């Protein structure tokens, strides 16, 4: 699973991600743990690597990190921003 490679552009502003979905010209602002996950997704990180990134960044429990990662990925998938 990774970020869609077509019609999706993004920029980093401080710790935030500003993304443009060019299919419908809609913008998305992602901050906090979402921006950590987005940046790792852009590097083709695997699911376990995403969970580890959250654990390292926020020193949270791995179970909580996995739940947060799954919720974030589900939201991106729902918006059509991921591809296999």
């Amino acid at each position: 699973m990774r970020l869609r490679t077509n019609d999706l552009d993004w920029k980093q502003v401080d710790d935030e991600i500003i993304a443009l979905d060019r299919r419908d010209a809609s913008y998305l602002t992602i901050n906090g743990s979402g921006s950590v996950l987005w940046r790792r997704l852009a590097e083709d990180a695997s699911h376990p690597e995403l969970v580890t990134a959250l654990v390292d960044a926020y020193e949270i429990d791995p179970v909580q990190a996995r739940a947060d990662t799954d919720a974030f990925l589900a939201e991106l998938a729902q918006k059509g921003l991921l591809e296999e």
Partner: protein
Amino acid sequence: MGEIIERAPSLEALRRHRIHLLAGRFWRSEGQYVPAELLSDEREAAMIALAVPPVLERIRAVCSGEIVLMKGPEVAACYPDPLVRPFRDLDLLVADPPSAQRALLDHGFVELGEPAFYADHHHLRPLIWPSLPVTVELHRQPNIARGTRSPSFDELLELTVPSATGIASLVAPAPAAHAVLLANHGWAHEPLGRLLDLIDVAVTLTPADRAVADELARRWECERLWRITVQTVDALLLDPTEPFSPRRWARHLARGRERAVVENHIARLAGAVWGAPRTQALQVAAAVLLAEGNRRSGETWSAKLRRTRLAVSHAFMVRSEHEQKLHTPNGGNCEVTHQRP
């Protein structure tokens, strides 16, 4: 630039010089506080930068013929981080702007602004692609200072390189030509007015052959303004060993402050005279004085008189404060009906 940013009296002054995004980046790198309103500006700049490729691709698909992209994203690409160079519009030069405008309107672009304001303007009414926050301005020729000569579209085409945006078959002025055009455009807007204009010249001139740029400035009859701009750029930005001895009307630059109302009036007159070819200096001075005495588009004579009276009483006030007072109910001028969008 760090020293100038630190000397600047306010965020508003940095905004006036259009170096606020650069200041934000500088403060963050120094571990200093970055105001929340600046983060909002940074978000907006990112949104505009993201909008550029899809808008240019649509334009390229609709308009046949050569398209030259000037300023904005083309200059931003010369900065170490393009996101610190603010812009809101895409300045495009085409052989036949009215035809290109019609084609873009037929394909979903929308016009902005009052038609009367753009009747004699140097570009057609701005266009926007709905939902994307960047406007498009079609020009036949670059905007230039009084008394200087604009290169024709065909002449400019011979001085182009592929656009830094990477959009296929879109071109941009080669660095030397771009630097001279930017200096002239900045002078037309306000002689040595904003630091961003000088930084633009610095970043485009750095990879260019200065002798080529000097020759183009001679050819386009803007040699004097070019020489003053380059001297100022060198002293302020590129070569700290160069003494900075600005003319009285350019002293605000080193302090990153805004011009006061009186300085601005002096700059418009003195700058126009200093920048124009010697043979045209008197004519240019007369034209500037005439323009200063005239009403703005849509302005009544009573509003003009109130504006003049306020300018005199605000002579030593910075321009942003003066302009703010001009547009308050008891400040006077609310009668200009044609404003830029």
